[in-house]
């Protein structure tokens, strides 16, 4: 796979430099500058919200640093967790004296590293709480939903937690809304083609020219089935059915994210959204705040995911609160 890059060893650092040059609201911080923070000073008394993960998923993770969203973000090499130090750097940057929420995807390495960073932070008197994104319904049964991977739906939790923190809520309140948002968010994806880590000799996975994999993770983790490609409407129907099978009691309004994994163009996302909207309407659900575009990608991977966040009054009003980062602007 061809890429517009220089030495693969510099891929992440050059990308972060470009990101911060283009968006002066972001700065690189820490010894190895592998954390991104807001360029404005952290407001004292405000709870910090941080995230982190591997590179290669832009706008995730670093692109969501901004007012009403993340205060800082630790970033690793492509598809590798951030180092413990980077996690510490992000937590330190987001410390306004009121504690820091660590909100990231449910991946082993990331969990361990944020946990250790949290222990170091505790030694410095900074309280942290952890909430894990676990929205990928393809990755474990509902009974084991806490084992699920975190994928695109994580950004809804960024938004609600970020908004509540901005309003001056306490750490446990911010953690609670993040957890509630995760608990009410479900994602399912479909992959069409692979991506390749810069410098790697081969793509991350292979898939035949006429096949798709339903439920595949954002690093190519195995999904539910792999078959010949089908019409978009059929796929959307299956995706929406699986998600609605786990609809929380009483939910009648939903936020929707139709996300490109990378190379799937806007045109196709709108074709998917059209059908999703029809199905949700038929199910008696009202859509608020639809997001359609590349929000959580895997470089040039082909495919798309649909995320629903089943709203209640609190999550709905926090999703609508003003926010601004390089890739998402509300209000």
């Amino acid at each position, binding site marked *: 796979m061809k890429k517009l890059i220089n030495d693969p060893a510099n891929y992440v650092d050059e990308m972060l430099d470009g990101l911060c040059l283009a968006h002066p609201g972001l700065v690189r911080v820490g010894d190895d500058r592998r954390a991104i923070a807001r360029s404005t000073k952290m407001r004292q008394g405000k709870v910090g919200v941080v995230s982190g993960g591997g590179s290669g998923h832009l706008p995730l993770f670093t692109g969501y640093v901004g007012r009403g969203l993340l205060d800082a973000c630790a970033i690793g090499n492509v598809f590798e967790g951030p*180092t*413990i130090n980077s996690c510490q750097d992000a937590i330190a940057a987001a410390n306004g004296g009121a504690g820091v929420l660590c909100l990231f995807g449910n991946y082993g390495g990331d969990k361990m590293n944020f946990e250790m960073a949290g222990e170091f932070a505790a030694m410095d008197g900074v309280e942290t709480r952890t909430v894990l994104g676990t929205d990928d319904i393809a990755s474990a049964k509902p009974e084991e939903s806490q084992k699920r991977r975190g994928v695109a739906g994580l950004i809804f939790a960024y938004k609600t937690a970020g908004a509540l923190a901005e309003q001056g809520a306490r750490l446990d309140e911010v953690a609670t809304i993040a957890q509630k948002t995760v608990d009410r968010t479900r994602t399912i994806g479909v992959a069409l083609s692979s991506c390749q880590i810069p410098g790697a000799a081969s793509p991350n996975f292979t898939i035949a020219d006429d096949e798709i994999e339903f439920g595949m993770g954002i690093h190519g983790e*195995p999904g539910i089935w792999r078959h010949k490609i089908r019409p978009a409407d059929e796929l959307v129907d299956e995706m929406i059915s699986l998600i609605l099978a786990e609809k929380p009691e009483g939910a009648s309004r939903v936020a929707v994210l139709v996300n490109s994994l990378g190379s799937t163009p806007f045109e196709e996302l709108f074709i998917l959204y059209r059908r999703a909207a029809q199905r949700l309407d038929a199910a008696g659900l009202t859509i608020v705040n639809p997001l359609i575009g590349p929000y959580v990608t895997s470089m040039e991977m082909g495919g798309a995911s649909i995320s629903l966040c089943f709203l209640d009054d609190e999550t709905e009003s926090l999703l609508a609160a003003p926010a601004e980062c390089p890739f998402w602007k509300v209000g």
Partner: protein
Amino acid sequence: MAITLATLADAIARANAAMSSLTDVLNAADAKLGDGDTGTMLARLIGTFAAVDVKNAENLGAGFMALAKAGAASTGSSLGTLIITAMMTAGKATAGKAELPWTDLSGLLAAIRYAAMARGKAELGAKTIIDGLDALASGVEGKTDAASAAAAAEKAMDAVLAEFRNRPSAMGRARMFAEKSVGLDDPGMLALAEIVRSLAKTSQHGAKPVA
């Protein structure tokens, strides 16, 4: 005889030297079901350790802590974080001490194994480096010097690799392919075994015993 800062520095130097031939072996083991980076990660981490001036640390505990600190800046991988956890555990256990008797090594390895389990939310028997640490702790129990500990450690690692080879993985990236992992060594456990082997070899052949 006891483990001192010199022992530690020497062990790191030997492990670092061994990585030049181990990197590819471990990457290949990880590539089978994981993301193929165990060797590269470990080489980077041990290289970072080797650059730390351990010999001149204030005491053994401070030496381990310095390693933990340096490592925290260099890795984001699961195995790397478990190794840093190990260094922190060792640092706490030997805080303020100039040396650790060889007879206490087993207890330290057991403490490390528990800390790693807590960190990785992993159980014994899941076919990870943790089973390797467990075997190692039992293996060196009662050994009073470097040479006998080394021989026992090597034997224990051979045995635990063999014991787990035909069992499925229940942790780490390979858990996604549990059935396929039967017949393959866990890369983390293999890494521990190979490092132990490289330390034991030099120690037994006496060229420059680890003690």
